[in-house]
């Protein structure tokens, strides 16, 4: 029952569809990929569609707006930064395709701020094999800090364990003896937060641990279990939507425990969007979180970022994701400036490893040759009357434990445009 004509038609079709471009042998040219005399091309993978798009799609738009601002002011070392954003819909298979296209077709200089643990994990080895700098991954997994294995991969977020430990430490100091519970996402995010909490209070001291799956938008069963367990301090390793849902569901049950939320799920403007502007100030009053970026309203970075957001991002809603995206952009521009007049992939990685980058955080960056984590310290933030700001100690989390340190914010220089 075979039909030769069908087969050959298919083969011809396949060839026609795929045969569009040049030849395949490995080239031996000496130029640096993605770097020309007047531009540097970099790329990223982000969830622009699909269930994860809400919220996160604002990050790359903010980064692009910051680069547009830099380019409008002469670029870095005379080069414009061209930022290619590929959609992966938070699907690891799509990430692999997108990143290969960026590396082989668009010949990017580096991948910057690829978003998500499962997504970015799927291209970690590939980027390593190809020798593409993999800078400032947008996730708090510990996997990005393995300099001996992945020598050009660097993290950006404070890792989840650090955040969990800092939240628990503050909770223990504020309410000694309170019943501590954890609600976490059922992946490395929730597990990391739980691990951090355990290092501080001990694993037997957590009264109730509940998890949720992103696909199921219902926390009634979990919160009911936590309520009946008598939880007083709830540490959340949840993304923004589920933080809002947890707070909202508990309020419907007339239950008002204290909320300690990881930075990935505690952005006040985003939470207010979910809960409604009218209810948010009351429901989120006193919510504790941690952060490390210059998010304080009225600060000089805040003023600059708002200005850039209005001018280069069509005045999109200004949230924690905006600050995050622009801060990543700033850090990359700083690294590029430090990589010299004729940057190479090696000099870019060396610039990050040098430890000379300052970033724009409220705590120092910890990059060095044998440490590829960005932030090992976080500052406590509290929501008061609808305003989220730094209001507590700054904790440094090391193998030895959690210690309070002094904040050391980086002052804004040269209008936020790095130069040599």
């Amino acid at each position, binding site marked *: 029952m075979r039909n*030769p004509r069908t087969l050959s038609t298919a083969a011809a079709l*396949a060839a026609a569809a*795929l045969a569009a471009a040049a030849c395949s042998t490995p080239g031996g040219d000496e130029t640096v990929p993605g770097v020309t005399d007047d531009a540097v091309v970099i790329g990223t993978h982000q969830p622009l569609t699909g269930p994860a798009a809400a919220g996160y799609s604002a990050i790359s738009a903010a980064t692009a707006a910051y680069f547009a601002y830099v380019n409008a002011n002469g670029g870095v070392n005379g080069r414009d930064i061209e930022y290619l954003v590929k959609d992966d819909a938070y699907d690891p298979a799509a990430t692999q395709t997108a990143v290969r296209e960026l590396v082989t*077709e668009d010949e990017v200089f580096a991948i910057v701020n690829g978003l998500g643990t499962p997504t970015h994990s799927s291209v970690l080895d590939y980027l390593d094999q190809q020798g593409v700098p993999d800078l400032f991954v947008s996730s708090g997994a510990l996997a990005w800090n393995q300099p001996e294995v992945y020598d050009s991969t660097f993290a950006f977020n404070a890792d989840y364990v650090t955040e969990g430990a800092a939240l628990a430490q503050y909770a223990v100091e504020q309410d000694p003896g309170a019943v501590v519970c954890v609600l976490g996402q059922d992946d490395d995010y929730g597990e990391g937060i739980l691990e951090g909490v355990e290092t501080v209070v001990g694993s037997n001291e957590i009264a109730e641990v509940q998890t949720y799956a992103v696909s199921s938008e219902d926390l009634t069963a979990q919160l009911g279990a936590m309520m009946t367990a008598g939880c007083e301090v709830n540490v959340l390793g949840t993304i923004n939507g589920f933080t809002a849902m947890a707070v909202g569901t508990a309020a419907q049950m007339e239950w008002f425990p204290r909320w300690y939320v990881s930075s990935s799920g505690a952005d006040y403007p985003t939470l207010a969007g979910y809960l409604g502007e009218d209810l948010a100030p009351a429901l989120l009053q006193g919510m504790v979180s941690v952060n490390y970026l210059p998010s304080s309203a009225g600060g000089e970075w805040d003023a600059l970022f708002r200005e850039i957001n209005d001018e280069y991002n*069509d005045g999109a809603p200004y949230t924690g994701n905006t600050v995050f995206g622009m801060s990543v952009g700033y850090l990359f521009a700083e690294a590029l400036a430090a990589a010299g007049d004729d940057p190479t992939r090696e000099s870019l990685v060396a610039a990050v490893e040098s430890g000379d980058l300052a970033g724009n955080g409220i705590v120092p960056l910890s990059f060095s040759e044998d440490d590829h984590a960005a932030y090992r310290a976080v500052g406590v933030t509290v929501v008061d009357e609808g305003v989220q700001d730094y209001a507590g100690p700054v904790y440094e989390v090391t193998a030895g434990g959690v210690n309070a340190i002094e904040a050391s914010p980086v002052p804004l220089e040269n209008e936020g445009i790095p130069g040599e």
Partner: protein
Amino acid sequence: MKTPLRALLLTVLALGGTFGLDPFRNYQLAAAAACFAAVAGLTVLVGLTGQLSLGHAVLMAAGGYGFAWAATAVDGPWPLALLAGLLAAALASGLLGLLLGAAAARLRGPYLAGLTLALVIALSAAAGALPLGGDQGVRAPFFPVPEALSALIAVEQWHAWLAITVAAAAVTPLAVLRSGPAGLRMRAVLDDETAARLSGIDPGRVKTGAFVASAIPAGLGGAVLAIATQQVTPGGYGLAFSLSLVVAAVAGGLGSIGGAAAGAVLVTVLPWAADELAALAPAELGRRLDGNLAVLLFGAALVALTLAWPGGAARLLHRARALRFATPSTTTER
């Protein structure tokens, strides 16, 4: 004996074709080859036995996990690790196929579709419950270009070669099976189960066997994808991907293996092409179109194709022959 010869010829042709492609197209070709193996299995299953599986992505995933596990565990020269991986992939997917097939033998159309759909949804939960690495999945070993070839070809082209070879090895037996007595029995069961039973065919066994025969190429397709991407994650084998396999099988014409190749290339290349198109639109509109436009066009094409030719596009080419099988089947109660 004509089928294996033709398969060999086409395989050599495809291998040669990789020299005309740049690394990214070669990567797409490897992905298309993986889809081709799975779609070929699916199209034979649906086209010849009328069993609609929405869960072929899970069979691919089973193959991928099997491959990653065995190829990592075997500590020897790379061809040995590769073979062990492929064997494990075939075994894992075959076993899962056997289980599903046993269920399928008892279930009629929509019930089987429901069961396989629930299977796809449960995959990511299963990856968390079983030692499969949760959402992050597991690493599959990297097969670098062998020394002798490393000056000649890039790694993507090498993976495309592996992909084409494995896909050919997976699909050729299926093609032989389909044109042999087993294929006849499948059609007999599809046309009229009672009549088939009267002539001594056990419909349950035929259906189960067809499921296994369809699962193994799918699993090898999963292995191919693991070779090309060095990673197996549950997120990569979700509902959208599983449905796109169905789309490929239908677009190519159910039951047609050549059509499966065309369909596999289509579902690999079209999303990328539509995104390129969306990138041309102005920023705000482009942001909304990005990703969505591909899905929209896909869906519209699928609806239009099915309305125009319910049997699938490639069927047009041999419609007269197809009609002979299609007509009686439409009268069976389902």
